[in-house]
């Protein structure tokens, strides 16, 4: 390791024992730390399944006939009360910020199907090609939400969202290295215990004051919408074109299972592709996405499932957006809710028979 730092890398003679001793010792340290965390993990990092009972209570209380599955796009863009008022049917949202197909699959399987009287119609709101990206938003804080919805063991979730895309190295780390497997929870505890504590000590404020101050200053309303959109485009820019190949992705996704599960419980499933701010600012949709959407539509036609696509709907304008892809409360949400109530009339008629 003589030349291993920022200094010179002039070569020198070293034998295999000497060269391997360093990395082996480092790996031994990792093993010791890993064992320590494995023991600690049993006591500390088990999350309670909070979300599942919460959703079940919501359904019980509302006796919803229609359920909207989605993420913050639905939270900001659809008003349940207005929808119920306009259609005469009770509707409720089961959403979580940033949720994607893994979340919706678990919601259908573990929440909706466990109801004595499942809702008659479930509407899934999605963007672009996310329906066939099973690993999309399944790490970090999103993973915590998935754990909260799960029933202990979820082999299909593990297979589709994690292991099938992982490759040998990542799968081995996830299966056998607790440090890696529990990194979301460890990091969250580290940030709470170390990072935030330093700021609290410097200012003599409590955790709530600190969190509220951060939430206030970095509130969506204080951001420049165009920059947020740009950042979102960068973050979601595909690094692999196979995600636009519908045929190769469909059998690796949760979509067929979601459709089968819904059918088994007599739930009518409908999909809504939402409009994004970017659809109004960045010109025509990319060619691979257009091909993907044509294949998706054809797949739904074969299954007898309806897809509504608002991407090119001229009635939703730039002024209806708040930040990123969220509609604003004043004009965007009422407009989209009304459009949705009218669009879903055929589905509503069908479940009302």
């Amino acid at each position, binding site marked *: 390791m003589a030349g291993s730092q920022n200094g010179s890398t002039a070569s020198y003679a070293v034998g295999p024992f000497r060269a391997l001793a*360093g990395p082996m010792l480092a790996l031994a340290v990792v093993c010791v730390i890993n064992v320590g965390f494995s023991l600690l993990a049993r006591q500390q990092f088990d999350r309670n399944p909070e979300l599942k009972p919460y959703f079940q209570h919501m359904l019980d209380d509302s006796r919803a006939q229609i359920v909207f599955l989605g993420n913050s796009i639905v939270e900001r863009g659809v008003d349940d009360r207005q929808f119920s008022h306009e259609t005469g049917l009770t509707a409720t949202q089961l959403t979580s910020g940033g949720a994607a197909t893994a979340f919706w699959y678990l919601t259908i399987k573990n929440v909706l199907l466990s109801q004595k009287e499942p809702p008659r119609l479930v509407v899934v709101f999605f963007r672009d090609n996310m329906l066939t990206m099973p690993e999309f938003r399944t790490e970090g804080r999103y993973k915590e939400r998935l754990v909260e919805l799960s029933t202990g063991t979820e082999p299909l979730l593990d297979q589709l969202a994690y292991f099938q895309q992982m490759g040998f190295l990542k799968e081995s780390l996830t299966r056998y290295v607790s440090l890696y497997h529990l990194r979301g929870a*460890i990091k969250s505890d580290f940030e709470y215990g170390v990072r935030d504590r330093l700021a609290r000590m410097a200012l003599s404020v409590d955790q709530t004051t600190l969190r509220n101050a*951060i939430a206030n200053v970095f509130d969506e309303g204080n951001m420049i919408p165009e920059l947020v959109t740009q950042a979102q485009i960068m973050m979601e820019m595909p690094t692999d074109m196979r995600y636009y190949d519908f045929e190769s992705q469909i059998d690796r996704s949760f979509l067929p299972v979601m459709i089968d599960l819904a059918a088994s419980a007599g739930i009518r499933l409908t999909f809504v592709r939402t409009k994004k701010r970017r659809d109004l600012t960045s010109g025509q949709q990319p060619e691979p996405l257009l091909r993907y959407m044509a294949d998706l539509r054809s797949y739904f036609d074969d299954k007898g499932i309806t897809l509504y696509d608002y991407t090119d709907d001229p009635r939703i304008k730039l002024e209806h957006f708040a930040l990123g892809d969220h509609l604003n409360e004043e004009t965007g949400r009422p407009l989209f809710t009304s459009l949705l109530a009218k669009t879903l009339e055929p589905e509503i008629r069908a479940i009302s028979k």
Partner: protein
Amino acid sequence: MIFTSFTYLHFFLLIFTAYWLVRRLLPQNILLLAGSYLFYGWVTPWFCLLIGFSTVVDYFCGLGMRRNPARKKIFLITSLFSNLGLLGVFKYFNFFADSVSNALAAIGLNADPVTLQIILPVGISFYTFQTLSYTIDIYRDECEPRTNFIDFAVFVSFFPQLVAGPIERAKRFLPQVEAPRYWKWSNLDEAWPLIVRGYLKKLVVADNVAVLSDKIFMLESPSLLMILAGSLAFAVQIYADFSAYTDIARGSARLLGFQLIENFKSPYLAISPSDFWRRWHISFSSWIRDYLYISLGGSRVGTGARFLLLLMVSMGLSGLWHGASWHFVIWGLYHGILVFAYHRLGLGGRWRPEGPIKTAVAWTVMFGFTLFGWVLFRVPDMGWFFSAFGSASAGFQGDLLVSAVSVIAATLVYSIPLFGLMALDRINVGGRLVHSLVYGVAIAAILTLAESQGQDFIYFQF
């Protein structure tokens, strides 16, 4: 393909194994070439056409200069025109079209800018400069043109340093490509700490701090304290990110038997602008010095107006190299002014203050200048800069103070690995044993604290 992806780890393991199994030079170089093109075209295969074009042009320009010495200049101009033309079209076309349109609009003429939907090929600025050094060195009789096309193509496309440097010189790197390479255990001994350091800096430091600085530079009206916090976070992010890439590149290259040059020498310890540029992105700053500044006559000027002019041209173009936007140009010019001002005050070149107090003052001043420079570099555009500084409150109270201090605290916590590595380099306590233990802890930190929404290396966009 990016270094922090598992795809790269699989790819490297395969290349590494096959490379040392074949043992002979020609198959090794063919393997490196094929691997480099696979690496570069992984996401966007047509990018390979661009690097292929650049390689072919410079290979024949090099040969042409040897066969027709009287027409050396024509071949040099062809090489410059082709490479800078590629950069111009793929990196700067929209920038210049927009700028001309805006300038015409300012004098009352309306012209719709002709902008193209161009994707910026990653690493184009790096390999363009690397291959230009070959033709310029041949023109200056400092390097012999190569006849072996595969060797030359490996020099241009060598995957560990292809997309974000360090920018190697032909006269230093080509001899390594041409020399037989045999496995030595010192390769592993030198490489693994570099790779661990790289992943630690990128995944634990840069990606976590990036979340902070990104948010601050999206705020509509940040306070001055918040801009300072954002600048500090970005300073940590860009150093950790870029030096991480260099470390992984150097470590990967070392495992294949190559030695890449150093790109960073504790840049934030600089005590003057000249000192900073001797420590920051060394392969690029020395390229600008040798091929632009000195070519324009920089070695023959004093500290007067011509010196200022050459500095402004060199540093302005350095800024533009980083991105097709005015704030990069202004960042470059700002550093040019700093270098000039320090020279005029007699603090240029290799100046060093006497005693610890003067050194501490010089360091503090320079670090302040560096932080302000990073604000210019990181802002989304100059409109944001003027608007933020024009209307910013001090922010020393209420939520603004609490959140700014929280960002600074988070930046400091995530910077601990950087301080730790610096201490490890400078205080050589315990030798190999302590180093191995520290790197073991570093690997554990990488496994647990890596930001799950991993980000591309910043310098990919340049």
